[in-house]
């Protein structure tokens, strides 16, 4: 089993009021020096069987047509190695 991670972020030119609200809260929490925060979405897809080119291509299509709206969002697709998954589960 392998994990494929799709990260979705608003395009840089799109205003992100949620990220701004988080950024404005930081000084109150004693965090200085953070000039900007942008908030995105992370999807973790657990794939049955090996992640080959064909599977990745399908996930890319899925991200492009559904997980992200490419009018306003950019996305990246990456495979998480089994070792990393095991590490994260500890």
């Amino acid at each position, binding site marked *: 089993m392998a994990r494929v991670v799709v990260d979705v972020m*608003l395009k840089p030119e*799109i*205003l992100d*009021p*949620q990220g701004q*609200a988080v950024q404005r809260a930081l000084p109150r929490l004693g965090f200085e020096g953070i000039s900007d925060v942008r908030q995105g979405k992370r999807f973790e897809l657990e794939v049955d069987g090996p992640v080959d080119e064909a599977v990745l291509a399908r996930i890319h299509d899925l991200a492009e047509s*559904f997980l992200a*709206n490419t*009018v*306003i969002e950019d996305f990246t697709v990456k495979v998480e190695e089994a070792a990393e998954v095991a590490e994260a589960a500890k």
Partner: protein
Amino acid sequence: MTARIGVVTFPGSLDDRDTRRAIRLAGAEPVALWHKDKDLHQVDAVVLPGGFSYGDYLRAGAISRFSPVMETVIEQAKAGLPVLGICNGFQVLTEAHLLPGAMLGNNHLHFICRDQKLRVENADTAWTGDYTAGQEINIPLKNMDGRYVADAYTLEKLEAEGRVVFRYLVDGPEADGYGNPNGSLRDIAGVTNEAGNVVGLMPHPEHAVESLIGTGRTDGLPFFTSILKKLVNA
């Protein structure tokens, strides 16, 4: 003979009944359509109503856009079927790429519910023929994700082609319904496709069709009389 106008009910739709009522008041025959049913039951036009279809999970309208009924709506809209998307329906239409741009959370991060003043910019669409260009109307607005965005090229194209159908009126006191309520670019409240058969807007005309209730005005009724006139005269 009158026109049959379908209203889709998705899980989470809220304004489907009000929309059917508005259609009836305008003199047309409302037809309830179900999200799982691909069949449009020979309707002459379709309205996608407001609400929070599929909980607005992922993005507003993102999941509804893949429902069985939308397969047919998308196909038929491309062939000229008149389609109106109100609020969540507008979000579904942008997610389905039947209308350009996208909807995002209000810039102030709050739900908003109030009467809103708008200017009708285009009275030539299938849904706005009974208005006059430049007319100012007052209808309810209630939404979380009402911020219309599109890239600079798309905005210029929409303006140049007269496809901004409604704009929020901003010059006046907020208490009287003026102002940009959600940070929409260029105060855009509604747009149309190239052919003018598909229209989407955030405010709710179906809640302003009887003088007895709501705003006390019937500023939303012309949406439904416009389409009826267009269909009957066609």
